[in-house]
């Protein structure tokens, strides 16, 4: 992994992200989003964080992308014909985004650190023990959050079904 490989990867990710945001057909934009996820996983591998890369692929590509696709199906968004997919004031968004990019880029150029050798990268076992030692509180909080989110999502969905049953004679 060296600079040119990273530059190539960055180009792939940025172009996929641009596609994901501008494509008219939502299914295609979700597919390019998946390319973005896989690209970020590759960046994590480059940054010596293989566990995070695997988790990223497992959760984002394995679950969130499919969730988005399912939602697209349920919403029966008219995927076929080209509906106007961009709000009227898209140029305002564009200016704001590019302004933000300029500021961030300026900040980014200031920082330049030599990368430490890949030798002392802590392995997955250290990550595991840390997760359940220093980080045990956030770990439990995360589990609570996930259950709450699950119950919340189901509560929203179920409520609809009762409604539709009542309305249907």
């Amino acid at each position, binding site marked *: 992994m060296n600079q040119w490989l990273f530059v190539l990867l960055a180009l792939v990710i940025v172009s996929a992200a641009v596609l994901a945001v501008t494509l008219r057909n939502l*299914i*295609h934009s979700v597919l390019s989003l*998946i390319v973005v996820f896989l690209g970020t996983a590759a960046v994590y591998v480059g940054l010596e964080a*293989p566990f995070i890369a*695997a988790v990223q*692929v497992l959760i984002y*590509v*394995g679950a969130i992308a499919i969730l988005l*696709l399912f939602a697209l199906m349920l919403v029966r968004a008219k995927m076929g014909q080209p509906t106007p997919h961009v709000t009227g004031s898209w140029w305002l968004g564009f200016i704001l985004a590019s302004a933000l990019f300029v500021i961030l880029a300026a900040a980014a150029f200031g920082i330049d650190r030599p990368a430490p050798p890949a030798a002392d990268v802590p392995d997955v*076992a250290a990550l595991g023990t840390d997760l359940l030692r220093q980080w045990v509180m956030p770990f439990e909080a995360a589990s609570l959050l996930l259950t709450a989110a699950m119950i919340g999502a189901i509560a929203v969905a179920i409520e609809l079904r009762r409604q539709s049953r009542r309305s249907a004679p």
Partner: protein
Amino acid sequence: MSMDNVWIAIKQAAVGAARDVLYPLLDPVLPAWITPERLMMFASAVISVVSILVIVPLVMMYLTWAERKVVGRMQNRFGPNRVGWFGLLQPIADAVKMLTKEDIVPARGDRFVHLMAPVLILVPTLLVYAVIPFGEGMIAADLDIGVLYFLALSSVTTLAVFMAGWASRNKYSFLGGMRAVAQMVSYEIPLVIAAVVVVMRVGSLSTVAIVEAQAGLFGWFVFQPWGLFAFLIFLAAMTAEANRSPFDLPEGESELVAGFHTEYSGMKFGMFYLAEYFSALAQCFLAATLFFGGWKGPLLPGWIWIFLKTFVLVFVLFLFRGTFPRVRVDQLMGFTWKFLLPLALTTVFVAGLTYYLPPVPGWIVGAVLLTGTFFVLMLPNRRVTLVRRACRLEN
């Protein structure tokens, strides 16, 4: 020099040759940044990849032949024996047929997604073989996140199934696609938890470490109570994940024509066919590594042991296909959410508990707890089916 490190010796010899012979030869031509070490690393990588890409498709081709022969014999009839000596050329005949068939893309379907789906299903299924230890030193990439890498990549195929189902613009394949995705997503959780049980006891995600931890004949995890239950859950989830045997709902021939790959023909259908067998074979390899002690075995060299164990597991998959009728969708979902998942969670709990107990009493406690939960979990499931049948009889 047992058979095991013959392979390692060959590889080292080849890599050494790459450095001594190849590098001086190509030196003037090569750009500056290719140093001998990089060439050696590249050569060893190429050797592993080529060996996998040769062995696994070959094994897979004759897996299809074996499946038709075995399932045929189970139904009191010969398997294919027309083409070649015992039908041995049948896979080649199938391959030629796949290649020569015309490639049809549904008219109003989404061309790009339709073409991408087979790629997106075949690539992860092949990538997964990098992590499977075929023998002592015979592993392509000994990642320290081996099992997680395997599970992450096998979850990507769910996406490809959805894309195939949607892009064919045909009601039945779309239904098949949605069913397949729902099934694969809900069966992935018991699969992951069953793998976590073993990883938790071994303390490392790397497949090589897992196999090392199963030393001795009774060291295999299958002989532990939690190991046996985790294996049974893994087996059930594996058949569902590969859309095989009792759970082959997505491509249920009777109702959904051919499920998500109805609109595919020629080589694209061939790729789906390949991917299905590759993923079934890969999961059998993983089950053999996780529960049956990979290449550990008394007499024969390591790689023979792992192939033997995998073929036994594959035979069990054929047996499933020869015996069980297809399950209904609600039974399919009920089975995983009401039976497999709670059982998997209890297995994790028992595995953790018995870690701190001395071996023998631990074994007993584990066995008692798990069989207890098995029977307790069975009650709600059995009563539900009985009740529904009873009320149907009344009205």
